Protein backbone atom coordinates (compact mmCIF):
# COMPACT_ATOMS: atom_id res chain seq x y z
CA UNK A 1 0.00 0.00 0.00
CA UNK A 2 1.38 3.34 -1.06
CA UNK A 3 -0.69 5.64 1.08
CA UNK A 4 -2.55 4.98 4.27
CA UNK A 5 -3.77 6.61 7.39
CA UNK A 6 -2.07 4.98 10.38
CA UNK A 7 -4.79 2.78 11.80
CA UNK A 8 -4.34 3.82 15.42
CA UNK A 9 -4.56 7.53 14.54
CA UNK A 10 -8.25 8.36 14.72
CA UNK A 11 -9.09 9.71 18.14
CA UNK A 12 -8.05 13.32 17.96
CA UNK A 13 -9.70 15.63 15.40
CA UNK A 14 -6.64 17.93 15.58
CA UNK A 15 -4.79 15.75 13.13
CA UNK A 16 -3.63 12.28 12.22
CA UNK A 17 -0.69 10.21 11.00
CA UNK A 18 -0.39 8.84 7.52
CA UNK A 19 2.25 7.21 5.38
CA UNK A 20 2.95 8.00 1.77
CA UNK A 21 5.51 6.07 -0.24
CA UNK A 22 6.85 4.66 2.99
CA UNK A 23 7.35 8.04 4.69
CA UNK A 24 5.49 8.87 7.89
CA UNK A 25 3.70 12.23 8.07
CA UNK A 26 1.45 13.95 10.55
CA UNK A 27 -1.29 16.20 9.28
CA UNK A 28 -2.36 19.09 11.48
CA UNK A 29 -5.99 19.91 10.77
CA UNK A 30 -7.51 23.39 10.78
CA UNK A 31 -9.29 22.19 13.92
CA UNK A 32 -5.96 22.09 15.75
CA UNK A 33 -4.38 25.10 14.03
CA UNK A 34 -4.61 27.60 16.90
CA UNK A 35 -3.23 25.17 19.43
CA UNK A 36 -0.41 24.16 17.06
CA UNK A 37 0.51 27.79 16.37
CA UNK A 38 0.66 28.58 20.06
CA UNK A 39 2.65 25.40 20.70
CA UNK A 40 5.30 26.69 18.27
CA UNK A 41 5.12 30.43 19.03
CA UNK A 42 5.48 30.06 22.81
CA UNK A 43 8.71 28.09 22.32
CA UNK A 44 7.19 25.02 23.96
CA UNK A 45 8.02 22.84 20.97
CA UNK A 46 11.61 24.03 20.95
CA UNK A 47 12.11 23.55 24.66
CA UNK A 48 10.54 20.07 24.64
CA UNK A 49 12.68 18.88 21.74
CA UNK A 50 15.83 20.43 23.20
CA UNK A 51 15.25 18.54 26.40
CA UNK A 52 14.74 15.36 24.39
CA UNK A 53 11.20 14.98 25.71
CA UNK A 54 9.31 15.24 22.43
CA UNK A 55 9.92 13.81 18.99
CA UNK A 56 11.27 16.46 16.60
CA UNK A 57 9.61 17.16 13.27
CA UNK A 58 9.99 19.37 10.25
CA UNK A 59 7.17 21.13 8.47
CA UNK A 60 7.11 19.90 4.89
CA UNK A 61 5.46 20.98 1.66
CA UNK A 62 3.52 17.85 0.98
CA UNK A 63 0.11 17.93 -0.63
CA UNK A 64 -2.67 16.96 1.73
CA UNK A 65 -5.28 14.49 0.60
CA UNK A 66 -8.00 16.68 2.07
CA UNK A 67 -6.72 20.25 1.67
CA UNK A 68 -10.01 21.71 2.91
CA UNK A 69 -9.28 20.58 6.47
CA UNK A 70 -5.49 20.48 6.40
CA UNK A 71 -3.37 23.16 8.07
CA UNK A 72 0.19 21.79 8.12
CA UNK A 73 1.97 18.59 7.21
CA UNK A 74 4.77 17.52 9.51
CA UNK A 75 7.41 14.89 9.03
CA UNK A 76 8.37 13.54 12.45
CA UNK A 77 11.67 11.83 13.21
CA UNK A 78 11.23 8.08 13.26
CA UNK A 79 11.34 5.93 16.37
CA UNK A 80 13.31 2.75 15.60
CA UNK A 81 10.87 0.37 17.28
CA UNK A 82 7.32 0.96 18.48
CA UNK A 83 6.64 -0.69 21.84
CA UNK A 84 3.61 -0.72 24.10
CA UNK A 85 3.13 -0.29 27.85
CA UNK A 86 2.35 -3.97 28.38
CA UNK A 87 5.81 -4.71 26.98
CA UNK A 88 7.67 -2.40 29.34
CA UNK A 89 9.38 -3.18 32.59
CA UNK A 90 8.28 -1.44 35.76
CA UNK A 91 10.76 1.44 35.57
CA UNK A 92 10.01 2.03 31.91
CA UNK A 93 6.35 2.62 32.72
CA UNK A 94 7.29 4.68 35.76
CA UNK A 95 9.66 6.90 33.75
CA UNK A 96 7.01 7.30 31.05
CA UNK A 97 4.52 8.39 33.74
CA UNK A 98 6.92 10.89 35.28
CA UNK A 99 7.80 12.32 31.88
CA UNK A 100 4.10 12.82 31.08
CA UNK A 101 3.67 14.83 34.29
CA UNK A 102 6.87 16.84 33.71
CA UNK A 103 5.78 17.72 30.20
CA UNK A 104 2.41 18.84 31.49
CA UNK A 105 4.06 21.14 34.01
CA UNK A 106 6.30 22.65 31.35
CA UNK A 107 3.30 23.10 29.04
CA UNK A 108 1.38 24.92 31.79
CA UNK A 109 4.28 27.32 32.23
CA UNK A 110 3.76 28.28 28.57
CA UNK A 111 -0.01 28.61 28.77
CA UNK A 112 -0.68 25.20 27.32
CA UNK A 113 -1.75 21.84 28.73
CA UNK A 114 -1.58 18.18 27.75
CA UNK A 115 -5.01 17.22 26.53
CA UNK A 116 -4.45 13.52 27.09
CA UNK A 117 -2.14 11.17 28.98
CA UNK A 118 -1.97 8.07 26.87
CA UNK A 119 0.87 5.69 27.63
CA UNK A 120 0.81 4.83 23.91
CA UNK A 121 2.03 8.36 23.19
CA UNK A 122 5.32 7.53 24.87
CA UNK A 123 8.08 5.57 23.15
CA UNK A 124 11.63 4.73 24.18
CA UNK A 125 14.74 5.82 22.27
CA UNK A 126 18.22 5.08 23.63
CA UNK A 127 16.81 4.14 27.02
CA UNK A 128 14.83 7.36 27.44
CA UNK A 129 11.09 7.98 27.24
CA UNK A 130 9.92 10.31 24.48
CA UNK A 131 6.51 11.82 23.74
CA UNK A 132 5.66 11.12 20.12
CA UNK A 133 2.33 12.92 19.81
CA UNK A 134 3.06 16.45 18.69
CA UNK A 135 -0.65 17.28 18.81
CA UNK A 136 -1.15 16.41 22.47
CA UNK A 137 -1.05 20.08 23.43
CA UNK A 138 -3.99 22.35 23.87
CA UNK A 139 -4.37 25.95 24.90
CA UNK A 140 -4.78 26.16 28.66
CA UNK A 141 -7.95 27.90 29.70
CA UNK A 142 -7.84 29.67 32.98
CA UNK A 143 -9.58 27.69 35.68
CA UNK A 144 -9.87 24.43 33.76
CA UNK A 145 -9.00 21.01 35.12
CA UNK A 146 -6.85 18.43 33.32
CA UNK A 147 -8.78 16.42 30.73
CA UNK A 148 -6.08 13.76 30.75
CA UNK A 149 -6.30 13.08 34.48
CA UNK A 150 -8.51 10.00 34.27
CA UNK A 151 -6.40 8.59 31.43
CA UNK A 152 -3.25 9.16 33.44
CA UNK A 153 -4.65 7.21 36.38
CA UNK A 154 -5.77 4.34 34.12
CA UNK A 155 -2.73 4.16 31.85
CA UNK A 156 0.00 4.78 34.41
CA UNK A 157 -0.93 5.00 38.05
CA UNK A 158 -3.14 1.90 38.29
CA UNK A 159 -0.73 -0.57 36.61
CA UNK A 160 2.26 0.89 38.51
CA UNK A 161 0.45 0.60 41.83
CA UNK A 162 -0.65 -2.96 41.11
CA UNK A 163 2.84 -3.97 39.98
CA UNK A 164 4.48 -2.32 42.95
CA UNK A 165 2.10 -3.37 45.70
CA UNK A 166 0.49 -6.59 44.47
CA UNK A 167 2.37 -8.41 41.69
CA UNK A 168 4.56 -7.23 38.84
CA UNK A 169 2.62 -9.47 36.43
CA UNK A 170 -0.23 -6.97 36.58
CA UNK A 171 1.83 -4.92 34.11
CA UNK A 172 0.49 -7.33 31.48
CA UNK A 173 -3.12 -6.44 32.28
CA UNK A 174 -2.86 -3.37 30.03
CA UNK A 175 -2.90 -5.77 27.09
CA UNK A 176 -6.50 -6.51 27.95
CA UNK A 177 -7.56 -2.94 28.66
CA UNK A 178 -6.38 -0.74 25.84
CA UNK A 179 -7.52 2.45 27.56
CA UNK A 180 -5.81 1.56 30.81
CA UNK A 181 -6.81 -0.44 33.88
CA UNK A 182 -10.38 0.34 34.99
CA UNK A 183 -10.02 2.11 38.31
CA UNK A 184 -12.71 0.07 40.05
CA UNK A 185 -10.74 -3.05 39.17
CA UNK A 186 -7.48 -1.55 40.42
CA UNK A 187 -9.28 -0.44 43.57
CA UNK A 188 -10.53 -3.98 44.28
CA UNK A 189 -7.10 -5.49 43.73
CA UNK A 190 -4.94 -3.07 45.72
CA UNK A 191 -4.12 -3.90 49.35
CA UNK A 192 -6.33 -2.46 52.09
CA UNK A 193 -3.45 -0.37 53.44
CA UNK A 194 -3.75 1.94 50.41
CA UNK A 195 -7.30 2.92 51.37
CA UNK A 196 -6.53 5.10 54.34
CA UNK A 197 -6.02 8.79 54.82
CA UNK A 198 -5.01 11.30 52.22
CA UNK A 199 -2.53 9.06 50.41
CA UNK A 200 -2.24 9.58 46.68
CA UNK A 201 -3.48 6.08 45.93
CA UNK A 202 -6.52 6.53 48.14
CA UNK A 203 -7.49 9.68 46.29
CA UNK A 204 -6.43 8.91 42.73
CA UNK A 205 -7.51 5.27 42.64
CA UNK A 206 -9.97 4.38 45.41
CA UNK A 207 -11.86 7.64 45.76
CA UNK A 208 -11.59 8.19 42.01
CA UNK A 209 -13.22 4.80 41.38
CA UNK A 210 -16.00 5.51 43.89
CA UNK A 211 -16.78 8.95 42.53
CA UNK A 212 -16.66 7.65 38.95
CA UNK A 213 -19.24 5.03 39.85
CA UNK A 214 -21.43 7.59 41.51
CA UNK A 215 -21.28 10.10 38.69
CA UNK A 216 -21.15 7.61 35.83
CA UNK A 217 -24.36 8.86 34.21
CA UNK A 218 -24.62 12.31 35.71
CA UNK A 219 -23.28 15.23 33.70
CA UNK A 220 -22.76 17.25 36.85
CA UNK A 221 -20.01 19.52 35.66
CA UNK A 222 -20.84 20.67 32.18
CA UNK A 223 -18.21 23.30 31.86
CA UNK A 224 -14.64 22.47 32.66
CA UNK A 225 -13.64 26.01 33.59
CA UNK A 226 -13.60 28.10 36.68
CA UNK A 227 -12.94 25.05 38.79
CA UNK A 228 -9.26 25.11 39.55
CA UNK A 229 -6.63 27.76 39.81
CA UNK A 230 -3.45 27.04 37.90
CA UNK A 231 -1.65 26.82 41.21
CA UNK A 232 -4.01 24.12 42.48
CA UNK A 233 -3.62 22.25 39.20
CA UNK A 234 0.17 22.39 39.47
CA UNK A 235 -0.10 21.22 43.06
CA UNK A 236 -2.21 18.30 42.00
CA UNK A 237 0.37 17.36 39.34
CA UNK A 238 3.07 17.57 42.00
CA UNK A 239 1.01 15.26 44.20
CA UNK A 240 0.66 12.79 41.32
CA UNK A 241 4.42 12.89 40.74
CA UNK A 242 5.08 12.16 44.41
CA UNK A 243 2.58 9.30 44.36
CA UNK A 244 4.28 7.77 41.30
CA UNK A 245 7.76 8.29 42.73
CA UNK A 246 6.85 6.39 45.88
CA UNK A 247 5.93 3.30 43.89
CA UNK A 248 8.92 1.01 43.57
CA UNK A 249 9.70 -2.52 42.56
CA UNK A 250 12.85 -4.55 43.18
CA UNK A 251 13.79 -6.86 40.30
CA UNK A 252 14.36 -10.11 42.15
CA UNK A 253 12.70 -13.38 42.93
CA UNK A 254 11.63 -14.06 39.37
CA UNK A 255 12.89 -16.93 37.29
CA UNK A 256 15.75 -15.34 35.39
CA UNK A 257 16.64 -12.20 37.30
CA UNK A 258 19.87 -13.74 38.59
CA UNK A 259 20.49 -16.02 35.65
CA UNK A 260 24.12 -15.33 34.88
CA UNK A 261 25.23 -15.35 38.50
CA UNK A 262 23.20 -18.52 39.16
CA UNK A 263 24.49 -20.56 36.23
CA UNK A 264 27.90 -22.09 36.08
CA UNK A 265 28.98 -20.04 33.09
CA UNK A 266 32.51 -18.90 33.74
CA UNK A 267 33.54 -15.39 32.80
CA UNK A 268 35.81 -16.89 30.15
CA UNK A 269 33.09 -18.86 28.42
CA UNK A 270 30.74 -15.85 28.47
CA UNK A 271 33.47 -13.75 26.89
CA UNK A 272 34.14 -16.41 24.27
CA UNK A 273 30.45 -16.69 23.47
CA UNK A 274 30.29 -12.90 23.11
CA UNK A 275 33.22 -12.95 20.69
CA UNK A 276 31.62 -15.60 18.51
CA UNK A 277 28.28 -13.75 18.48
CA UNK A 278 30.17 -10.56 17.58
CA UNK A 279 31.99 -12.23 14.70
CA UNK A 280 28.69 -13.58 13.35
CA UNK A 281 27.23 -10.07 13.50
CA UNK A 282 30.26 -8.70 11.65
CA UNK A 283 29.80 -11.35 9.01
CA UNK A 284 26.07 -10.68 8.42
CA UNK A 285 26.16 -6.89 8.96
CA UNK A 286 22.52 -6.52 10.01
CA UNK A 287 20.93 -3.07 10.30
CA UNK A 288 18.53 -4.18 13.02
CA UNK A 289 18.68 -7.07 15.48
CA UNK A 290 16.11 -8.68 17.77
CA UNK A 291 17.65 -10.61 20.63
CA UNK A 292 14.96 -13.10 21.69
CA UNK A 293 15.36 -14.37 25.24
CA UNK A 294 17.95 -11.66 25.82
CA UNK A 295 17.87 -11.89 29.62
CA UNK A 296 19.60 -8.69 30.84
CA UNK A 297 20.95 -7.93 27.37
CA UNK A 298 24.50 -9.21 27.85
CA UNK A 299 24.78 -10.40 24.25
CA UNK A 300 22.41 -7.79 22.81
CA UNK A 301 25.24 -5.38 23.53
CA UNK A 302 27.46 -7.16 21.01
CA UNK A 303 25.15 -5.70 18.37
CA UNK A 304 24.28 -2.42 20.12
CA UNK A 305 27.87 -1.39 20.68
CA UNK A 306 28.50 -1.89 16.98
CA UNK A 307 25.92 0.83 16.41
CA UNK A 308 23.18 -1.64 15.44
CA UNK A 309 19.70 -0.98 16.81
CA UNK A 310 18.76 -3.98 18.95
CA UNK A 311 15.57 -5.06 20.67
CA UNK A 312 16.41 -7.11 23.78
CA UNK A 313 13.28 -9.04 24.64
CA UNK A 314 12.76 -11.44 27.49
CA UNK A 315 9.84 -13.07 29.25
CA UNK A 316 11.20 -12.11 32.66
CA UNK A 317 10.27 -8.63 33.93
CA UNK A 318 13.18 -8.67 36.40
CA UNK A 319 15.78 -9.29 33.69
CA UNK A 320 14.26 -6.59 31.48
CA UNK A 321 14.12 -4.20 34.41
CA UNK A 322 17.82 -4.78 35.12
CA UNK A 323 18.62 -4.24 31.47
CA UNK A 324 16.67 -0.98 31.35
CA UNK A 325 18.26 0.33 34.55
CA UNK A 326 21.74 -0.50 33.20
CA UNK A 327 21.03 1.25 29.88
CA UNK A 328 19.74 4.26 31.79
CA UNK A 329 22.68 4.39 34.21
CA UNK A 330 25.31 4.06 31.48
CA UNK A 331 23.39 6.11 28.88
CA UNK A 332 23.74 3.27 26.43
CA UNK A 333 22.44 3.70 22.93
CA UNK A 334 20.71 1.45 20.36
CA UNK A 335 19.10 -0.85 22.92
CA UNK A 336 15.37 -1.36 23.46
CA UNK A 337 14.51 -3.64 26.39
CA UNK A 338 11.17 -5.36 26.05
CA UNK A 339 9.11 -7.80 28.13
CA UNK A 340 7.90 -10.47 25.75
CA UNK A 341 6.82 -14.08 26.10
CA UNK A 342 8.01 -15.57 22.85
CA UNK A 343 5.61 -18.50 23.23
CA UNK A 344 2.76 -15.98 23.29
CA UNK A 345 3.98 -12.76 21.71
CA UNK A 346 1.94 -9.54 21.78
CA UNK A 347 -1.10 -9.83 19.52
CA UNK A 348 -2.56 -7.01 17.47
CA UNK A 349 -5.20 -5.31 19.57
CA UNK A 350 -7.67 -2.47 19.56
CA UNK A 351 -10.30 -1.42 17.05
CA UNK A 352 -10.47 -3.86 14.13
CA UNK A 353 -7.34 -5.47 15.60
CA UNK A 354 -5.40 -2.64 14.00
CA UNK A 355 -4.46 -0.16 16.71
CA UNK A 356 -1.47 -1.84 18.31
CA UNK A 357 0.64 -4.13 16.18
CA UNK A 358 1.47 -7.70 16.97
CA UNK A 359 5.12 -8.33 17.77
CA UNK A 360 5.66 -10.21 14.49
CA UNK A 361 4.07 -7.39 12.51
CA UNK A 362 6.81 -5.06 13.74
CA UNK A 363 9.33 -7.15 11.81
CA UNK A 364 10.83 -8.55 9.76
CA UNK A 365 14.26 -7.85 11.09
CA UNK A 366 17.72 -8.46 9.62
CA UNK A 367 18.94 -10.76 12.35
CA UNK A 368 17.65 -12.50 15.42
CA UNK A 369 19.72 -13.84 18.27
CA UNK A 370 18.35 -16.96 19.95
CA UNK A 371 20.94 -17.75 22.58
CA UNK A 372 20.25 -20.39 25.23
CA UNK A 373 16.67 -20.29 24.06
CA UNK A 374 16.03 -23.27 21.83
CA UNK A 375 15.80 -25.82 24.68
CA UNK A 376 13.13 -23.73 26.40
CA UNK A 377 11.05 -23.60 23.24
CA UNK A 378 11.60 -27.21 22.20
CA UNK A 379 11.48 -28.91 25.57
CA UNK A 380 9.62 -26.68 28.04
CA UNK A 381 7.09 -25.63 25.41
CA UNK A 382 7.07 -28.85 23.33
CA UNK A 383 7.62 -26.96 20.07
CA UNK A 384 8.92 -29.13 17.21
CA UNK A 385 12.27 -27.88 15.85
CA UNK A 386 10.73 -27.49 12.36
CA UNK A 387 8.15 -25.10 13.77
CA UNK A 388 10.80 -23.03 15.54
CA UNK A 389 12.90 -22.84 12.36
CA UNK A 390 9.85 -21.73 10.32
CA UNK A 391 9.01 -19.01 12.82
CA UNK A 392 12.57 -17.67 12.89
CA UNK A 393 12.64 -17.64 9.07
CA UNK A 394 9.34 -15.75 9.00
CA UNK A 395 10.70 -12.84 11.02
CA UNK A 396 14.37 -12.65 10.07
CA UNK A 397 16.93 -13.08 7.29
CA UNK A 398 19.68 -14.15 9.61
CA UNK A 399 19.59 -16.11 12.84
CA UNK A 400 22.27 -16.74 15.43
CA UNK A 401 21.08 -19.82 17.27
CA UNK A 402 22.72 -21.62 20.17
CA UNK A 403 21.96 -25.32 20.20
CA UNK A 404 21.94 -26.72 23.73
CA UNK A 405 22.07 -30.54 23.64
CA UNK A 406 20.45 -33.02 26.01
CA UNK A 407 23.66 -33.70 27.93
CA UNK A 408 23.90 -30.02 28.93
CA UNK A 409 23.14 -29.48 32.61
CA UNK A 410 20.39 -26.95 31.85
CA UNK A 411 18.57 -29.38 29.55
CA UNK A 412 19.03 -32.18 32.08
CA UNK A 413 17.32 -29.95 34.59
CA UNK A 414 14.38 -29.38 32.22
CA UNK A 415 14.09 -33.12 31.61
CA UNK A 416 14.56 -34.16 35.22
CA UNK A 417 10.88 -34.06 36.07
CA UNK A 418 9.33 -35.23 32.84
CA UNK A 419 9.41 -38.03 30.30
CA UNK A 420 11.89 -37.49 27.49
CA UNK A 421 9.64 -37.47 24.42
CA UNK A 422 12.11 -35.49 22.35
CA UNK A 423 13.79 -38.10 20.16
CA UNK A 424 14.65 -35.56 17.46
CA UNK A 425 16.24 -33.10 19.86
CA UNK A 426 19.81 -33.74 18.75
CA UNK A 427 22.40 -31.71 16.91
CA UNK A 428 21.60 -33.67 13.73
CA UNK A 429 17.87 -33.13 14.25
CA UNK A 430 18.47 -29.43 14.81
CA UNK A 431 20.53 -29.06 11.65
CA UNK A 432 18.01 -31.04 9.59
CA UNK A 433 15.11 -28.90 10.83
CA UNK A 434 16.82 -25.57 10.30
CA UNK A 435 18.42 -26.55 6.96
CA UNK A 436 14.93 -26.73 5.47
CA UNK A 437 14.65 -22.95 5.58
CA UNK A 438 18.14 -21.70 6.44
CA UNK A 439 21.61 -22.26 5.08
CA UNK A 440 24.22 -22.93 7.77
CA UNK A 441 26.67 -20.07 7.15
CA UNK A 442 28.90 -20.82 10.13
CA UNK A 443 29.06 -23.20 13.07
CA UNK A 444 31.14 -22.75 16.18
CA UNK A 445 31.33 -25.18 19.13
CA UNK A 446 31.59 -23.33 22.42
CA UNK A 447 34.70 -24.50 24.26
CA UNK A 448 34.08 -25.68 27.78
CA UNK A 449 30.49 -26.73 27.04
CA UNK A 450 28.49 -29.08 24.82
CA UNK A 451 26.84 -26.17 23.10
CA UNK A 452 27.18 -24.98 19.52
CA UNK A 453 26.55 -21.57 17.99
CA UNK A 454 25.15 -21.40 14.48
CA UNK A 455 24.98 -18.53 12.01
CA UNK A 456 22.02 -19.22 9.75
CA UNK A 457 21.07 -17.38 6.56
CA UNK A 458 17.56 -17.63 5.22
CA UNK A 459 17.30 -19.58 1.97
Amino acid sequence: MNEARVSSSFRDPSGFLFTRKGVLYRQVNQFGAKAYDKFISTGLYEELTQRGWLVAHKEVEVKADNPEIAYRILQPDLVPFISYPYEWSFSQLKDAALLTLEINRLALSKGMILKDASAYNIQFVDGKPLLIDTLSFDIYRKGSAWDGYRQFCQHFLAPLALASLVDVRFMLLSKNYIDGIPLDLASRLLPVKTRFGLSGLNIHIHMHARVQREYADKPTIQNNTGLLTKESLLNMLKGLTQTVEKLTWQPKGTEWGDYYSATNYSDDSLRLKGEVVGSFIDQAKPAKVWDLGANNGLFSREAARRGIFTVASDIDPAAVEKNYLTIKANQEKNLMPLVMDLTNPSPSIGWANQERDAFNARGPVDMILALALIHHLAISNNLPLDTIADYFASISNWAVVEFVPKNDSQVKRLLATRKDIFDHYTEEGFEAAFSRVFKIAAKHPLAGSERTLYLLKKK
Partner: protein
Amino acid sequence: MHHILLNTRYLDPGSGSLLVQLIAAGLVGGFGILAKVFWGRIRAFFKGEKYEPPAPETDDDDLDEA
Protein backbone atom coordinates in the same frame (compact mmCIF):
# COMPACT_ATOMS: atom_id res chain seq x y z
CA MET B 1 -19.16 29.10 20.95
CA HIS B 2 -15.92 30.88 20.36
CA HIS B 3 -14.03 28.52 22.61
CA ILE B 4 -14.82 25.48 20.50
CA LEU B 5 -12.48 26.83 17.89
CA LEU B 6 -9.82 27.60 20.44
CA ASN B 7 -10.06 24.44 22.39
CA THR B 8 -9.37 21.07 20.84
CA ARG B 9 -10.21 18.74 23.71
CA TYR B 10 -11.37 15.38 22.51
CA LEU B 11 -11.24 13.19 25.62
CA ASP B 12 -14.20 13.00 27.92
CA PRO B 13 -12.62 14.01 31.18
CA GLY B 14 -15.50 12.37 33.07
CA SER B 15 -17.57 14.16 35.70
CA GLY B 16 -16.32 11.93 38.47
CA SER B 17 -12.71 12.45 37.44
CA LEU B 18 -13.17 16.23 37.40
CA LEU B 19 -14.59 16.11 40.88
CA VAL B 20 -11.72 13.99 42.18
CA GLN B 21 -9.27 16.46 40.67
CA LEU B 22 -10.96 19.19 42.66
CA ILE B 23 -10.65 17.12 45.79
CA ALA B 24 -7.01 16.23 45.08
CA ALA B 25 -6.16 19.83 44.27
CA GLY B 26 -8.12 20.99 47.30
CA LEU B 27 -6.05 18.78 49.53
CA VAL B 28 -2.83 20.23 48.29
CA GLY B 29 -4.10 23.72 47.44
CA GLY B 30 -6.98 25.89 48.57
CA PHE B 31 -10.29 24.43 49.64
CA GLY B 32 -12.20 27.45 48.33
CA ILE B 33 -13.48 26.16 45.02
CA LEU B 34 -14.38 22.81 46.49
CA ALA B 35 -16.35 24.46 49.25
CA LYS B 36 -18.13 26.55 46.66
CA VAL B 37 -19.15 23.50 44.66
CA PHE B 38 -20.37 21.57 47.68
CA TRP B 39 -22.05 24.54 49.32
CA GLY B 40 -23.88 25.14 46.03
CA ARG B 41 -25.02 21.54 46.07
CA ILE B 42 -26.18 21.60 49.66
CA ARG B 43 -28.07 24.85 49.17
CA ALA B 44 -29.69 23.57 46.00
CA PHE B 45 -30.74 20.41 47.83
CA PHE B 46 -32.50 22.29 50.65
CA LYS B 47 -34.14 24.72 48.28
CA GLY B 48 -35.27 21.79 46.16
CA GLU B 49 -33.65 23.36 43.10
CA LYS B 50 -31.56 21.83 40.39
CA TYR B 51 -27.92 22.43 41.10
CA GLU B 52 -26.14 24.77 38.68
CA PRO B 53 -22.38 24.61 38.74
CA PRO B 54 -20.52 27.85 39.41
CA ALA B 55 -20.11 29.99 36.34
CA PRO B 56 -16.71 30.13 34.72
CA GLU B 57 -14.44 32.77 36.16
CA THR B 58 -13.40 33.95 32.75
CA ASP B 59 -14.87 34.61 29.37
CA ASP B 60 -14.16 32.15 26.66
CA ASP B 61 -11.63 34.37 25.00
CA ASP B 62 -9.94 35.31 28.22
CA LEU B 63 -7.22 32.77 27.81
CA ASP B 64 -4.32 32.47 30.10
CA GLU B 65 -1.51 33.79 27.99
CA ALA B 66 1.85 32.94 29.44
